């Protein structure tokens, strides 16, 4: 789809610029004329919503950094200073912290959209892998950002998560000291988390550019998963999808604004309103809601497997749960792309979504029965889905007949 440039510089100035830096041509090709399947549904607008989310986080983050102090003695109070004294700080801080949740909500919808409609299948594997890379980078960024207010959950979250590295045989303990910059989570840890929390969003933005590049080479997937065959299957990105995306963004901003204005703290844990104390653990450590499924997988392994102890086992399981996402293009070898035409896949997909929600629920519960057993079952099913169900399904499933083209599916046979 790279041979669609119809741009003709309008005047002498544009022509002059085009021969030196074809930025207008680029915008015209990729943001305006870009031929996009005409049957994209609203699940596809979350890509644009995510760009909005990243932009909001970067802008509000830069502003917050102007008022925040990354020092263990002052960090907690400086956040309160932002919320109480800084002009409009109450709103800006809320937009940033609620924004993280909204970002992840959109991110999960975007990923599950891709999983249902087979957006990871050839020729879009690189696009999918870059997406998973963005997801992991975003989780790391969110985690480090959560540590900055230096509340009890922040501190103990940092302790628990950095402790993951101590599970690595032989070098674990030295690596842990290297990461923390001390024997325990402390001022050096806070300083470097602040530095990296500021840096990573720009790296994410760079990977997003690659992600969109990898999208614009093969072009968009679409709800029926049939490739674009001719010009009638597509519409120009602008104004058709720019307007649709804008409309979706406005709808997305309604719950966003509700949280910001009416319940800015509802998505966080109340214990984070207690200043960090290295001597006392909160009775129950939980991460933010968007990390819960992976947290459940981490702690579901509370038994030794051969020479792998329970701690390392949990870490490996959590790593594997993300690796499974990277491998999904090769685990699901079915030729039919869209889940809409895969009768069995549909049900297993629904079951997987429920399993994922259950994992999130269990991560917020205490480590007692029946939750610990349920967590093991749900973790087991997570891996079963990727490593057994998907490969087997793609072999035994008989897909429903596909429409011959996007136009036919939209307009009916008469018009095709």
């Amino acid at each position, binding site marked *: 789809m790279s041979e669609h440039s119809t741009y003709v510089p309008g005047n002498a100035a544009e022509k002059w610029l085009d021969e030196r830096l074809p930025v207008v041509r680029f915008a015209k090709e990729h943001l305006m004329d870009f031929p996009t399947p005409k049957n994209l549904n609203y699940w596809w607008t979350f890509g644009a919503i995510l760009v909005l989310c990243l932009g909001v986080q970067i802008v509000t983050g830069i502003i917050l950094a102007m008022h925040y102090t990354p020092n263990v003695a002052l960090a907690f109070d400086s956040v309160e200073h932002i919320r109480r004294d800084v002009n409009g700080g109450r709103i800006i801080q809320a937009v940033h912290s609620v924004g993280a949740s909204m970002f992840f909500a959109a991110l999960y919808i975007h990923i599950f959209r891709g999983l249902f409609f087979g957006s990871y299948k050839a020729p879009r594997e690189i696009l999918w892998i870059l997406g998973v890379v963005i997801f992991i980078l975003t989780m790391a960024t969110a985690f480090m950002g959560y540590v900055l207010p230096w509340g009890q959950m922040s501190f103990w979250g940092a302790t628990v998560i950095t402790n993951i590295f101590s599970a690595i045989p032989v070098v674990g303990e030295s690596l842990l000291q290297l990461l923390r910059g001390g024997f325990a989570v402390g001022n050096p840890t806070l300083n470097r988390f602040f530095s990296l929390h500021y840096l990573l969003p720009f790296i994410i933005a760079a990977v997003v550019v690659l992600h969109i590049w990898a999208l614009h080479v093969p072009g968009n997937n679409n709800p029926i998963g049939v490739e674009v065959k001719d010009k009638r299957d597509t519409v120009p990105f602008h104004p058709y999808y720019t307007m649709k995306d804008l409309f979706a963004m406005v709808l997305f901003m309604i719950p966003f604004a509700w949280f910001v204005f009416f319940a800015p703290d509802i998505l966080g844990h109340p214990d984070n309103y207690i200043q960090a104390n*290295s001597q006392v*653990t909160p009775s129950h*450590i939980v991460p933010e809601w968007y990390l819960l499924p992976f947290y459940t997988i981490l702690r579901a392994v509370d038994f030794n497997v051969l020479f792998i102890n329970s701690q390392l086992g949990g870490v490996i399981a959590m790593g594997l749960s993300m690796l499974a996402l990277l491998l999904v293009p090769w685990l699901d070898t079915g030729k039919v792309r869209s889940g809409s035409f895969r009768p069995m896949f549909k049900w297993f997909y629904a079951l997987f979504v429920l399993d994922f929600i259950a994992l999130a629920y269990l991560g917020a519960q205490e480590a007692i029965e029946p939750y610990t057993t349920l967590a093991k079952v749900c973790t087991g099913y997570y891996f079963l889905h990727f490593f057994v169900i998907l490969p087997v399904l793609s072999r035994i499933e008989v897909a429903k007949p596909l429409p011959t083209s996007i136009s036919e599916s939209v307009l009916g046979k008469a018009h095709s």
Partner: protein
Amino acid sequence: MTLATQAEHSSTRRDFLYVATGAVGAVGAAAVVWPLINQLNPDASTLALASIEFNLANIPEGQSVTITWRGLPVFVRHRTQAEIDEAKAVPLADLKDPETDEQRTKPGHEQWLIMIANCTHLGCVPIGQSGDFDGWFCPCHGSHYDSAGRIRKGPAPKNLVVPPYEFISDTLVQIG
């Protein structure tokens, strides 16, 4: 010298220079990267606090205190005779991370149990004198430790860590 041998000769020489330059470059890059990584390690001000002295005289039997050493919480417990006997009675075969009570205390000072207070699973601080084994219980992920701080049940892989320490006198202990 024919043209062919000359070409062969110069290409070998060029290959050597190419590999040698690459090797020196790699060593140079590693030498530059190391200080950039090493700055992450604990700094001098952190290391300066690596060792402390602590007076045990004010802890009555059956009581514990939590002190800070290297930024880490440390439990200092004055164990009762019943707790010591209980810990000694446990057969090693019952333990996930087998260690005798003697290995975890100093001879002649069995009543003093000094341990880093972070659960060996993921670093939470367990609650004292609770759990199923009269020791410590970590509510985060459900690890139970016995009266010698040894892991008995739950996901933690190791016993609570005993830091390096020495008795300077009967009541004064140096940790670190």
